[in-house]
């Protein structure tokens, strides 16, 4: 896998910055009681969605999670329609029916965030079955957390993909916790990729903070899937900067741990260092990206805020198709 060139590097950085900015703004809107329900911040894990989705076409599919804003953005979603959904507007991706945990953008192959841990894994597997069945070279990627690895859906799906050699990449985002449960208490093995061997597929461990590493590992896995080489399990080590959900008291973590990791583990800061030191772009250019992203976020929120409130009258329309 060739390392990202200037354009690719800037794209990766922009996507990561956009995700970070989206999450910061979402938290602000939530604090202002403009967002209902619950939101889960992807801050700190941006390199995974960005590095993986850089290899996907609009007609490739992904399944996402409750922590799905990052995947959605990396797969090319419109920020305005995303915010509009969080604000419960008719102009939102789900007409206000779904909210944060169910944003989908089928026009870009995003089969949806999912409120069920592990719920997207068999769905991505089925999407890969479609590609296989119709003889296309499309690829499906399933994002899920370390917690989802102990769901039966993970087990059954990886086995099906392995015996059928399906074009799917399983991306486990190991952010060290499943809600309050630390990964070391959820597994008796230190390395989650060990599970891959039991299904007969390659397992790859990668530093989820380093977008170049993720990009390289995902590039290989996606290429393998596209060329008929079958599935791969990627486990990307990561850390979530925020609580599990907005407002999480985080009783299960110490201040030191949180602060330490936040500093040590910031894919955006790392990317700036890498890009500048490799001379792919200057700090000034990266600052310009940051400003452009900030403006895009402002415009998106404005647009979303102008959208009409979703109407209860039309709810029945979306229960059944073709009626």
């Amino acid at each position, binding site marked *: 896998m060739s390392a990202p060139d200037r354009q690719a590097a800037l794209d990766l950085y922009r996507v990561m910055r956009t995700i970070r900015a989206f999450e910061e703004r979402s938290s602000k809107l939530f604090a202002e009681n403009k967002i209902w329900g619950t939101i889960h911040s992807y801050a700190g894990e941006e390199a995974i969605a960005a590095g993986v989705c850089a290899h996907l076409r609009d007609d490739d599919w992904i399944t996402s999670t409750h922590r799905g804003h990052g995947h959605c953005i990396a797969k090319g979603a419109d920020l305005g329609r995303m915010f509009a959904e969080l604000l419960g507007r008719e102009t939102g991706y*789900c007409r206000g*029916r779904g909210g944060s945990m169910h944003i989908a953008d089928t026009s870009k192959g995003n089969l949806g965030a999912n409120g069920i841990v592990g719920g997207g894994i068999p*769905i991505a597997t089925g999407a890969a*079955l479609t590609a296989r069945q119709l003889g296309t070279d499309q690829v499906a990627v399933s994002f899920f957390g370390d917690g989802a690895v102990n769901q039966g859906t993970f087990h059954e799906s990886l086995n099906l993909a392995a015996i059928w050699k399906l074009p799917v990449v399983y991306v486990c985002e190991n952010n060290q916790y499943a809600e309050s449960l630390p990964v070391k208490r959820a597994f008796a093995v230190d390395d989650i990729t060990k599970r891959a061997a039991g299904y007969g597929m390659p397992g790859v461990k990668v530093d989820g903070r380093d977008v170049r590493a993720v990009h390289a590992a995902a590039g290989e896995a996606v290429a393998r899937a596209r060329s008929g080489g079958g599935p791969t399990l990627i486990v990307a080590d990561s850390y979530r900067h925020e609580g599990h959900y907005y407002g999480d008291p985080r009783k299960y973590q110490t201040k030191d741990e949180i602060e330490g990791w936040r500093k040590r583990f910031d894919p955006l800061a790392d990317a700036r260092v890498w890009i500048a030191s490799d001379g792919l772009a200057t700090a000034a250019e990266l600052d310009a990206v940051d400003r452009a992203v900030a403006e895009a976020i402002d415009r998106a929120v404005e647009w979303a805020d102008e959208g009409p409130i979703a109407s209860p009258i039309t709810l029945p329309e979306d229960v059944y*198709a073709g*009626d």
Partner: protein
Amino acid sequence: MQATETRAPAATRELFYNEALNDALRLEMQRDERVIVIGEDIAEHGGAFQVTAGLLDLFGPTRIRQTPISEIGIVGAAVGAALTGLRPVVELMYVDFAGLAMDQIVNQAAQNRFMFGGQARVPMVLRTQGGSGRGNAAQHSKSLEAWFAHVAGLKLVMPATPADAKGLLTSAIRDDNPVIFLEHKLLYRTKGQVPEGEHLVPLGRADVKRQGNDLTIVTWSREVLFSLEAASRLAAEGIEAEIVDVRTLVPLDKEAILGSVRKTHRLLVVHEAIKRAGYGAEIAALIAEEAFDDLDAPPRRLAGLETPIPYARHLENSVVPQVDDIVRAAKELVG
């Protein structure tokens, strides 16, 4: 795309219920390459009840996709396939195993379209079979239609005859929504005349299987046959029962039931599932609500006893409505 009634077909042929289902699968797979069948033992073995017999030879192992024993993985894969362009037909060997896959059926298949604000369609059929009568005991004999009926976003079909089985399965496969298609293990070897070639029975239309003026028996699946048998015995005693086979529980053909009750003024709902919170309660409540003044007697439910299904034959028959029970209940209702 809603199926529409086809004009009376040229020829018919006598088939077993499972042959009629097989016929529908074959025709739909020939008509549309996006239709695939996925499930356990459906290939060489032809399915636990021989519904997919011979299809492996016709369509090969990729379209007749035999799986390991991974119910939630299979159903979830079908959801993903349906979301992305296939029209999968899942064979779940026993409805009793639905408890393993219920999350993908309910939280995903049934709700994806709604949660996504109409962006998605999930054109899949979950074929399975339920019911008692074969000594398979409590984990292989349930009738769980009430669970599925209580889920917004699912359609629910329970054919009683070979012709309905073929026509309804064809409509289910062409429907753009997740359809739960419940067969009965003791109907597979029942025979009936079945239209040749394309045969569609629209979802949402009940069928009056017998006319009568003295009471209305609303029922479905195997109890339709029991009710018809009971009706002829009742006729011998001068009681004319009208048998309304709802065929599809969701959408329900309310008008057909109301129409019949307005004529007979008496309602007996018969089903095999346990009575408590069974689908019969929905129908009895619906009629009590909407045709209260038309009723000359309380709406009556005859259903399974509130126990799991026991193994021994005489025990098994004692907990689900038999022909005698229907005759007795009907007489009490009119008497």
